[in-house]
């Protein structure tokens, strides 16, 4: 009897230790996130004002606002998504629904993974040589957006593929069993079921695109350009690059320190809003899929 109790105690102890460890790490992660956020908020909230988000930078970027950088970042997000989303989704559909298991599929998969591992500065260099020079777009929102699009393509492909894989095969069989073609099955049954999860890919890529600096360095970003872009062939300022500039090579780094934190805060808020928006979208479509 006592041996049994001893064993039970031992089991309980090891369980408590394991659970304690899990709890601790998860709290630690959350805490760390809050510390970073709090740091940025405390340092940056002081400069946030209507003037800050709606005006051009002034006095060698030590005063005024960051409006053109906000607009530039939004434009880059838009262009990159318009490119990466359809291309990535179609590629994932092709890979998951059409290609048979075999060498070709393995190669494409491996390439996609490799693409995800390429450093972003290399994408920048590639974007410069292809879009800026070879295709003659010049330093422009188009060139920068396409470069960022290439960068997030693997994310879009992978999340879309995972969402398609999660769709139970019996849905495909039921549809094909009714005489539907593969395309009808994919577009009318499989993709609508996967769509709410596909949006996750969109969320992740928007976050990534708005924060990346290296790929826009040689393809679009302007050091100081106190006017709004009028077309996708214009250069533009962007939040992450602006942040980099005023923290390292501005005219008066000390004077623009507060603005740097303000810029970081705005960047984080933009990512946060886009996440919330995409989440709402996902919930909405998740419901709709069940209703239609």
């Amino acid at each position, binding site marked *: 009897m006592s041996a049994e109790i001893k064993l039970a105690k031992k089991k309980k102890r090891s369980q408590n230790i394991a659970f304690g460890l899990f709890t601790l790490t998860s709290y630690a992660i959350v805490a760390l996130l809050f510390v970073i956020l709090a740091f940025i908020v405390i340092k940056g909230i002081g400069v946030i004002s209507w003037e800050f988000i709606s005006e051009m930078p002034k006095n060698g970027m030590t005063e005024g606002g960051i409006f053109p950088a906000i607009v530039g970042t939004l434009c880059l997000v838009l262009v990159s998504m318009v490119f990466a989303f359809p291309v990535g989704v179609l590629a994932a559909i092709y890979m998951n629904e059409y290609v048979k298991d075999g060498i070709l599929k393995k190669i494409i998969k491996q390439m996609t993974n490799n693409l995800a591992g390429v450093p972003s500065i290399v994408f920048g260099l590639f974007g410069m040589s292809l879009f800026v020079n070879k295709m003659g777009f010049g330093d422009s929102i188009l060139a920068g957006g396409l470069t960022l699009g290439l960068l997030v393509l693997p994310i879009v492909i992978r999340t879309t593929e995972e969402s398609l894989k999660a769709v*139970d095969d019996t849905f495909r069989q039921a549809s094909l069993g*009714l005489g539907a073609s593969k395309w009808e099955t994919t577009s009318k*049954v499989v993709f609508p079921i996967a769509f709410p999860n596909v949006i996750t890919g969109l969320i992740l890529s928007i976050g990534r695109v708005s924060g990346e600096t290296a790929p826009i360095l040689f393809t679009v970003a302007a050091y100081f350009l106190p006017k709004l872009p009028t077309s996708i062939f214009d250069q533009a300022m962007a939040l992450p690059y602006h942040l980099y500039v005023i923290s390292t090579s501005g005219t008066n780094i000390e004077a623009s320190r507060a603005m740097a934190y303000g810029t970081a805060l705005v960047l984080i808020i933009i990512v946060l809003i886009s996440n919330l928006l995409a989440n709402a979208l996902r919930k909405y479509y998740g419901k709709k899929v069940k209703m239609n």
Partner: protein
Amino acid sequence: MLKIESKNVNFNYGDFQALHDISISMKENTVTALIGPSGCGKSTYLRLLNRMNDLIDNTHMNGTILIDGQDIYDKNTNVDSLRKNVGMVFQKPNPFPKTIFENVAYGLRVNGVTDKKEIEERVITSIEQVALWDEVKDKLKKSAFELSGGQQQRLCIARALAIQPSILLMDEPTSALDPISTSKVEELIYELKNKYTIVIVTHNMQQAGRVSDNTAFFYMGKLIEYDKTKTIFTKPTIKQTEDYITGRFG
């Protein structure tokens, strides 16, 4: 009249031969039960009849399967129209995440029916055919997921019937259902026999006995015995069949 005729059918998943030399014929408007232990090839055989196995990579079939005298594995066979003619009901109820109405209408739409009135009529007829109309008539615009498992399975049968197939394949259609839902589906099979040729895979001996005219016993990829259900269950000629039916293995 012979509806389905298989001659010397062999089927491989990669190197594994799942079916050996299966020859079996089924008459029009009969119910044939395929029985046998798990992995015996009965579901594989069923899925050859609407070429569902085509979806699996790295498989190989040889032999001949005729439906209404036509070789369904001929190069010129249109697989989509074959599947329109050979409906299928799956093991787990799998309605689409659409409304009850759209679930049944889907097959019509993908087969080119566009007339709203016709779609509506055929949806209603099919739902009535599976005795589900009274239960769902007030919630056709609701999600099919709101139905119970048994209702969902009858909806899936209605979905298959809407496009007016002549053959209905059922892959353990009641294995996920409770006894009451099961008996409803069985009654339905009995009624549908008048209009359709039905092939049903089942693990449930009593079910095979209740619903089928003929029974085929599969074991390790071979067709061991095929005869009238009564004969198979009362005086099977082969010892293996008898052992399986009396529950000595499987």
